[in-house]
Structures are given as C-alpha cells and as structure tokens.
C-alpha cells in the first residue's frame, strides 16, 4: 500500500465514443495512475483500441468519430476547444500493433520526430539515449545509417518504442505491441515496459491475459453490454485483484478462460 495518495495523469469522465451514430464505447470513468502500467483487456471488438486511441486523439482521423464526456490530462480536457491534437500526440506517444518504422535509416527513425517537434539539443545524444532506453542500442549502434527494415520484427517494435521515447512524452500508449511478435521478442518488450514505467505512464491494450497479469499494475476490463452492444468498462482495479478476486462475474469468466 502506498502512503501518498496516487497521482492521476489521465482521468476520464463519462467518456463515450461514437462512430457516426454507432456508439462504440460508452460511459468510461477511469483514473490512470502516473508511472504505472495500466492494461485494458476484453474480448475482440469491445472497444479497447478505440478507447486507447481516444487518449491521443488518433480517432480524429476517422471522419465520423466524436466523443462525449471528458478526457482530462492533469485536469485539462484533451477534447477542449483550445487543445490542438498535435500537441496531445506530442505529450501522449503511441506504439502500434504492427511495427511500423519509417522507411528511413535507424537514426532518422528516432531523429525525425524530435526534429519536427523543434528539438534543439544534441541529436546524436538523443538518438543514443532513446535507443538505450529501448534496450536496442547495443544491437544497432554499428548500423545507425542502415534501413530500419533490416531489423527483425522485435527490434523494429523496440525501435518504434525508442522513437516514441525520443519526443519525451509523458504517457505511452501501446496497442497490442507484442501481438505480431514471437515469444522471445514479446518477453523483451515486457521487460522493457518494466524499465520504462520508472519514467513514463504506460497504457497497454492486450488480448493476452497472461501478459496483462505479468506486466500491469492496474487492469481495466471491457465488455460489450446492453442492447446496443457497445463496449463499456465493467471493472477497473489493481491487476492482482482482477485476476484473483474479481468483483464482476463476467470478469471472472473471462480471465479464467470460460469465455472470450
């Protein structure tokens, strides 16, 4: 148990996400604690990724999408009129399901994001620090000018994490970051997440319940509910409680593999 009251970074209030008239995610209320890993789990199509992408306004690129309710970052509504989504994405980085490095050199993959965001410091230093933080430096330090596509899938994904770290976000969103990787690479990503949470708040969407149990401190359980079959969060608590003593019967059925 902690002595200090937990520090919340992201807070959602009655958050609902629509695609046109379709209600994809309804009434999510959750507090993301700083420098912890929060996992979002649930069956396919229940709106996990939609919720995650709402945090850095990636859903804006789906033309018909809109939200009601609020997502607060330190009390400021990310969907407020005076907030620019580019600024949000600068503070809340994202790692995607499939590794998607830029078709550029390893060095440029890291440097590009920093450069467009007006980084004025020593670029070589930043590249090295970011790659070290992503536990990739030793593997790539001799081929920084080589194409990122020459790396393996697991290395590419760590490069994507390094690219995200390079712009010094506060929060890192991970959308099933290991689902396209083999078990060894998955393990390395999970170890990396444990190191990263010293400095960053991490929110991860995963299909893999063992992964959620292994890496996360808090877990949000989502499920399709109601007549409209829209996704909602049915339970949110410390991970060990979700997996050992869930309050909701549906959570228990899901995490014990009885359905889903």
């Amino acid at each position: 148990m902690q002595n200090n009251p937990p520090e919340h970074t992201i807070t959602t209030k009655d958050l609902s996400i629509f695609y046109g008239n379709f209600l994809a995610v309804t009434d999510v209320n959750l507090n993301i604690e700083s420098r912890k890993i929060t996992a979002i789990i649930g069956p396919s199509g229940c709106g996990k990724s939609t919720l995650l992408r709402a945090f850095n306004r990636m859903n804006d690129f789906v033309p018909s999408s809109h939200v009601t309710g609020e997502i607060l970052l330190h009390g400021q509504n990310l969907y407020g009129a005076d907030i620019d989504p580019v600024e949000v994405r600068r503070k809340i980085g994202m790692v995607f399901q499939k590794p998607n490095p830029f078709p550029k050199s390893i060095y440029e993959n890291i440097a590009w994001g920093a450069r467009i965001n007006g980084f004025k410091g020593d670029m070589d230093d930043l590249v090295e620090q970011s790659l070290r933080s992503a536990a990739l430096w030793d593997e790539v330090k001799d081929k920084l000018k080589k194409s990122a596509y020459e790396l393996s899938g697991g290395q590419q994904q760590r490069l994507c994490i390094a690219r995200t770290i390079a712009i010094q976000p506060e929060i890192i969103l991970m959308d099933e970051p290991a689902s396209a990787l083999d078990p060894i690479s998955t393990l390395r990503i999970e170890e990396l997440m444990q190191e990263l949470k010293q400095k960053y708040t991490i929110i991860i969407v995963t299909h893999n319940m063992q992964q959620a149990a292994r890496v996360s401190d808090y877990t949000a359980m989502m499920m399709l509910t109601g007549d409209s079959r829209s996704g909602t969060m049915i339970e949110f608590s410390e991970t060990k409680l979700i997996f050992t003593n869930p309050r909701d019967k549906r959570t228990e059925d899901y995490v014990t593999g009885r359905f889903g």
Partner: protein
Amino acid sequence: MNNPQTDNFPEGPSFRRALNARYRSASLWQMVFLSALLIAILSLMTLLYTVADGAFGYVAYEYKHDPTEFSSTPLNELGKDELLSILQSNLSAGAFKKLDNEKPMASRSHADLYSLFLERLLQIDTKQIWSMTDSFLHAAEIRAEATHKYPDAQLEFRSWLTPQFLSSPMSSRAEFAGVRTAILGSLWLVGIAILFALPVGTGAAIYLQEYASKNWLTKIIQTNINNLAGVPSIVYGMLGLAIFVRLLEPLTSGAAFGVIDSNGRTVLSAGLTMGMLVLPLIIINAQEAIKAVPDSLRQASFGVGATRWQTVWHHVLPNALPGILTGSILALSRALGETAPLIVVGASTFISVDPSGPFSKFTALPIQIYQWTTRAQPEFHAIAAASIIVLLILLLSLNAAAILLRNRFQRKY
C-alpha cells in the same frame, strides 16, 4: 451409420467422369485465352512489320544533271573545298546567300555540303521504290525491271532511317527531308506538358487523397476526373484552341513579353493543351500511388506529433513519388503520340526552323507522319514509315525509363 449427405456426392467412376468434364472445360477456356494472346501478339508483329516494310527497300533513282557537268572528279572523291566552290559557282547568288545566312557555308561539314550538292545541283529524281519484302523476295526481278524501265537510273538498297534523317530539318524533297524539327518540337511539347501537368496533377491528387473530406462534392469531382481521362483528345484540342490560342493569345504568343510577329499557335499553347490532356491521367495515377502508401506509415507520423502537412511532405510524398513519376511518364508517352489536338491548335505542317523557345512555331512527329502519309509520292510514304520508327523508339524509351524508375525506387513496407 452413414451421413445422408455423403450419398449426394459422386463416388468412384462417376466422380472420375465428372472430374474429366471439369478438366475439359478448363482446357477449353485455356485455349480461348491463349488464342486471345496470340491474336494480340500477331497484330503487334504485323504492325511493326508493316512499318519496317515501308522504311527499307530498293530505290531506283537518277540524277537530273550529270555529275560531269560540275566537276571532272568522281563524286565520291570530291573534297570539301571543291564542293564549296562548285556550289558557289553553280547556285544563284541569292540562293547561296540564303544558305549562308542559315549557317555559314565555310563552317558546314562535308556531308552537309555533299547533300546540298545532291539536292540543289544534281537533283536526285526518285523513280520507283520497292518494299522491304519485295526487295528480299524478288531482288532479281526488281533489278531486271529497273534496268528495263529506267536504263539511266541507279538501283540501291536503302534504309530511309539514317543519322542524316534524324539530323536534317524539313525539306520539300523527301530524299533530303528529316525529322530534327519534329523531334525537337515533340520534346518541347512534352517538356511543357510535364512542367504544367506534374505539379498541378500531383497537388490535386494530394488534396483529394489526404485533405478533402469524403462528401458528395468530392465524389462528383472524382467521377469527373475519371470521365475527363476518357474524353476524346480532339475535344482537348478545341479547348486549347479556345483558351490558349485565342483567349490567352497575348501570353501564349509572347506578345506580352515583347515577342513580335507571332500568333497564339505556339509550342507553348500546344504544350499546355497536352498538359490539360494528360492532367486527369496524372491525377488518377498519383492518387493510386498515394493510396498505396500504407496507413500505418501515416499513423506512425501522426503518432510522433507530426502535422498533416509534415506527414504528407516527409512520408506520403516520398513514398508515392516513384508511382507518381511512373504514371506521369506513361501519361507523357500518350501525349507524345497525340495528333488530333495539335492539328486543331495549329501545328505547322512545313517548318524547317527548330523551335527555339516557348513562343516558337513548331511541328511534332505525329503531325509530320500524318502530313507525309497524305502525300502522293511514294518516297514520302517511305520517310513517314521511317519517322514512325523514330516515334516508336521514343515511346519505348519513355516506357523503359518508367520501368527503370519504378524498379530503382520501389520500396517495401
């Protein structure tokens, strides 16, 4: 216990019979497709053969004047100085001065002077020409016929496509006419067309793919672009005539820039018309190339805090560029072969001056071919065939450039 559905499938010999029937119909279709391919190849071969048939073959010709009238030296031993003095003493003073003004006689090459000598003084008179096929199959008959009908004529197997043909300007005598003016005109045309159509087309494609919201207006615009790509080229010619030649004449004739004695029928007007013609093709090609850039790349860019323009400029455009260029080159090869809009816009049919700038009068290869094929004399048909070969080679090199570009820059994601 049998599954009742199993009985509904053929078994054993009846299955084999059904299977053989399936193979028979498959091989029938395969034959149909193969013959379609053969017909296509055959048509193409016939086309190429017909062109080559006209461009090479026996020619019977004689000189209107005897070489001994001008010099006692045999023709092939005439030196440059000798040729120069022959020309000077036998041409009228006015004609010599005119030639000297075009290019100083003293600085002309031996080959140049020699062809002037042939053209102006000896005056080649082509009596008859034979096709390549006849020349190969009936060489003996042709020789007999030539000696019988034209006892004074010389008979030679000639390729009408020569380096001299490429480097000579237009002439009223087929033996001395060349396609230099037409090649330069065509290059000016496609140059102006690409300078206009590539930036405009790429810009339009970027806007439509990356910025425009998907609503009824963009759907209408998209449909119209697709339809414009199919509009007959002569319609673009009318458009060019109305807008560039007539309406914008002060600009396209160069009058606004101090060019005097010129009208709107310039290579600039024609190039812009060609640009309009290929614009829809370039937009559609560029849109396809932009669509092929995977969305994951855009997301990666947005994910590190890039604006839409940064995403387009740094990621979408560089990755779509090979496709855009390939499509543009293929569109240009269409412009290179277009004839109808040039006739409407007013290409010159007889011009021996090279285009020297955007406000020049011009001619183009297809115009030249068209013009020569309508002439009565068979030797003009022969040089038309030779220019078709030139045009085809130009087209093939453009297409080859497109393929090389694509292979050179092809990316994997």
